[in-house]
């Protein structure tokens, strides 16, 4: 078997190997990668930086794939020499490997502009997973970070760091952002969106020096100005990594020169990806690399025939809530071209088409990229647009995505990254029996890169496979066209602090009884309590801190932590019940006391007379911890569940949660306080605690899942805290823990809470602590009314006769 050596374990090299594996004859394949990771999706590094994806999530081909295909994978080995006569490559580990065919897929390296004293502690590039990890290790909320470069990569890095809480300034040399993909107007729309996310953008500034003595303290600009910085990310572009091309004696200009068959100037050496130059162009985006790989696979396996004829340059900015798409020619100066524009500043939508000879030459979309695939197809096929002239900027019947896909031609590309056409997907569905999105990804690789075509893929499946069950995009309500997951991502790191602002920008500007409380919760959680509280967006219970009853009166449940009270408290409760003629005094199922039938206007007075904190019995918040008498009195108790429960309640009380949270702590497995059917339960055993989550004994009955078993009470409380905050951050509004745990899967919950990295755990605990610090007993509002009429019924100013 002939020996194929691949230098580079990135997206282009491995995608090409995937194609080669589909051809005959077979090769004996060795892949060298100087990074120590298996093939991963570089495009999603910004999502890793933003903490939305883990390292594992972005793996494209795991170790098992290499093994299955008998590929010898050498990670952490940098190839430093190529002998094109002897046909060997030399590694920096001293190894020499011979080849029959050599494939160079060495990608590119970050372009470092000439800046004085650039080598300082705190200066980073953002190119690979190790860079990302280093950045993640360094960044923390409040850190001043400066990103040099306002292109795709720089903006995605900026957004990731913003999500991590850094104060971000993007410094860009040119007059507008993404100047290679956008015109000045498009750039200004994009800058406005970045500003909304809390990112400062400085344009037309050339960075001349990094300030600081050994450690970054600021950056200086041409002309003398400077800004402070604790961290600098250089994302000023990339240049093809062509060192080995020179070594091998290949023709190299900016990149390694290849012809239409992806052949270099040496018959047994090939090159693909960002390191090559085809027809004078070096490509830096993923779709062309995939196209090149397909051609190269044919050539290298002796099936020479398919030609690579260049790609239409297209770019999509992958920042949630900031839609930018650009393809083809973007300048206004194209001879004989016409430009068609549409702008809506209020909605932040900008569209520009450049036509030449009745055909599309270029497109810019900001704010709404739903039609990008249609324009991309017009560009690729050079469709004559004469007949469509009146509909160029108006989308087709976009309401029904099924219609849209039906109108697509088979040759139209669905997945621009992986170069998968509609025809290829239909073929996979018919011939390979594909009927889920996961199978479609596996089979065609469609939607495995940036993921922006996943909607189209679903629509296709829906249209072609009768039994396809759509993965429904669940929006909160009709007011906002986003799912809660998406919305959390969008709002994360933005400056929007109030429900009305969110509705104005991402919704219909009005809102309803469903989304307003959901958004109220989300903002409170995201800002750790430092949001602009708008009581009009809260349910009445949260305006007056009591539970409305069928007759418009309210119920009052004071906090009795762990169900442990005192004669004094009981006397006060009894006195209050008498004084305000409470209609019913009821022992609740939660070891508390409910005073029912209270008038709204009496609430503040009752709270004052009780002198006890709110039990939050009326809200989606922390209810209570039910406890048994543990080791204090019980003959069987092996853990002090009473103290543990009281402490648990004390740590979480006054916080809002997606739905109510009821907890329990028991001192032995007899489970007298029913901890195993609570949202969070602590179950004492001899010498240890079991922390269980997701239990229920309401509309649904569910035994809680074991989160972790730990030795000390403090460890148990910490495990509970990790889960509690994880639920607060990840659950949809009105989703109880038992639904949340089932949806996410307890394994993943464990992995992301008690078994998460120390940094991730600390993040959860820090955010919980911050929220807790800002929270307070709602009943103290009796002394600091939100407004003078919060609890009263208004009396007319004029006398009215009945």
């Amino acid at each position, binding site marked *: 078997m002939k020996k194929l050596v691949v230098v580079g374990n990135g997206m282009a090299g491995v995608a090409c190997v995937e194609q080669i594996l589909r051809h005959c004859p077979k090769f004996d394949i060795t892949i060298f990668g100087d990074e120590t990771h298996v093939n991963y999706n570089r495009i999603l590094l910004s999502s890793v930086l933003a903490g939305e994806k883990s390292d594992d999530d972005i793996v494209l081909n795991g170790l098992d794939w290499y093994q299955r295909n008998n590929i010898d994978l050498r990670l952490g080995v940098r190839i430093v020499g190529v002998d094109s006569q002897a046909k060997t490559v030399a590694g920096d580990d001293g190894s020499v490997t011979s080849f029959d065919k050599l494939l160079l897929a060495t990608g590119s390296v970050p372009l470092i502009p000439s800046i004085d004293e650039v080598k300082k502690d705190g200066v980073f590039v953002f190119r690979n997973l190790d860079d990302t990890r280093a950045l993640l290790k360094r960044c923390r909320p409040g850190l001043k970070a400066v990103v040099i470069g306002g292109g795709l990569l720089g903006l995605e890095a900026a957004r990731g760091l913003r999500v991590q809480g850094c104060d971000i300034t993007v410094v860009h040399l040119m007059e507008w952002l993404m100047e290679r993909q956008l015109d000045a107007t498009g750039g200004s729309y994009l800058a406005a969106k970045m500003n909304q996310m809390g990112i400062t953008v400085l344009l037309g500034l050339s960075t001349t020096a990094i300030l600081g003595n050994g450690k970054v303290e600021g950056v200086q600009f041409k002309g003398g100005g400077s800004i402070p910085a604790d961290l600098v990310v250089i994302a000023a572009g990339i240049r093809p990594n062509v060192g080995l091309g020179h070594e091998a004696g290949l023709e190299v200009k900016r990149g390694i020169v290849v012809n239409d068959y992806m052949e270099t100037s040496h018959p047994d050496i090939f090159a693909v990806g960002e390191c090559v130059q085809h027809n004078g162009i070096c490509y830096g985006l993923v779709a062309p690399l995939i196209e090149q790989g397909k051609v190269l696979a044919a050539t290298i396996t002796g099936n020479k025939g398919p030609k690579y004829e260049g790609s239409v340059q297209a770019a999509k900015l992958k920042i949630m809530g900031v839609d930018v798409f650009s393809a083809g020619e973007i300048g206004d100066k194209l001879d004989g071209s016409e430009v068609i524009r549409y702008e809506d500043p209020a909605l932040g939508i900008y569209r520009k088409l450049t036509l030449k000879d009745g055909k599309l030459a270029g497109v810019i979309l900001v704010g709404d990229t739903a039609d990008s695939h249609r324009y991309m197809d017009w560009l690729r096929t050079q469709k004559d647009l004469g007949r469509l002239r009146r509909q160029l900027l108006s989308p087709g019947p976009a309401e029904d995505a099924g219609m849209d896909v039906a109108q697509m031609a088979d040759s139209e590309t669905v997945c621009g990254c992986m170069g998968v056409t509609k025809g290829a997907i239909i073929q996979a569905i018919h011939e390979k029996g594909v009927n889920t999105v996961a199978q479609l990804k596996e089979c065609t690789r469609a939607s495995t890169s940036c993921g922006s075509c996943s909607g189209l893929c679903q629509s296709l499946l829906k249209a072609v496979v009768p039994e396809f069950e759509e993965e429904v995009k669940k929006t909160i309500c009709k007011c906002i066209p986003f799912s809660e997951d998406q919305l959390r991502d969008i709002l994360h790191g933005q400056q929007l602090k109030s429900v009305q602002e969110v509705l104005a920008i991402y919704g219909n500007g*009005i*809102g*309803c*009884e469903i989304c*307003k*409380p959901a958004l109220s919760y989300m903002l409170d959680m995201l800002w750790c309590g430092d949001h602009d509280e*708008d*009581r*009009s*967006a*809260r*349910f*009445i*219970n949260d*305006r007056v801190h009591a*539970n*409305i009853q*069928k*007759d*418009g009166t309210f*119920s009052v*449940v004071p906090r009795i932590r762990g169900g442990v009270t005192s004669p004094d408290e009981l006397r006060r409760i009894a006195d209050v019940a008498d004084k305000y003629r409470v209609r019913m005094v009821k022992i*609740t*199922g*939660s070891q*508390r006391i*409910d005073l029912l039938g209270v008038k709204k206007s009496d609430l503040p007075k009752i709270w004052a007379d009780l002198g006890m904190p709110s*039990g939050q*019995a*009326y*809200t*989606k918040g922390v*209810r*209570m911890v039910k406890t048994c008498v543990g080791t204090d009195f019980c003959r069987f108790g092996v853990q002090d569940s009473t103290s543990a429960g009281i402490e648990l309640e004390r740590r979480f009380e006054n916080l809002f949660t997606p739905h*109510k949270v009821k907890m329990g702590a028991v001192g032995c497995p007899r489970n007298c306080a029913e901890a195993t059917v609570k949202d969070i339960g602590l179950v004492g055993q001899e010498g240890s605690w079991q922390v269980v989550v997701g239990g229920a004994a309401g509309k649904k009955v569910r035994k809680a899942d074991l989160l972790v078993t730990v030795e000390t009470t403090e460890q148990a409380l910490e495990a509970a805290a990790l889960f509690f905050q994880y639920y607060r951050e990840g659950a949809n509004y*009105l989703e109880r823990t038992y639904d949340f745990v089932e949806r996410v899967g307890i394994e993943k919950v464990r992995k992301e809470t008690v078994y998460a990295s120390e940094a991730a755990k600390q993040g959860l605990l820090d955010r919980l602590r911050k929220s807790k610090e800002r929270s307070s007993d709602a009943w103290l509002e009796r002394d600091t009314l*939100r*407004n*003078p*009429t919060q609890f009263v*019924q*208004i*009396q*007319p*100013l*004029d006398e*009215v*006769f*009945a």
Partner: protein
Amino acid sequence: MNTTWVRIAFCRDIPLREGRAVKVGNREIAVFNLGDRFLAVENRCPHKGGPLADGIVAGASVVCPLHAWKMSLETGRGVNGPSASSCVETFRTRAEGGIVLLELRDIRGQSQAASGGELAAMCLQPNDVPAITDYPSTAEA
């Protein structure tokens, strides 16, 4: 019909996008601050008598806190599924010198009975429609 404009509250006492109940004679009226205007309806949901003044305002509608019936504050008509064939009485309002005024039909004479009669004729009697479940109004200790 005789009508009277009654000064009922200071504008500032009704927070933006919230409602407040005002006792006028022997009936309760819910007055809402919509930012650019005030709207008023009877403070009694046609479903189970819930206090509409305590509801969440959604545009020019209010959602009853008991079972989420949604009533238009402009027309008084129900606007979501179960409430669609019901309505509440509406009242004209105007704001003047920081004060909200409410127009009342003459409530001392027989015209009150007449207005009650009109109301009964205008609105279909609410059927006992099952409450909307999953609305965040159920909370127990």
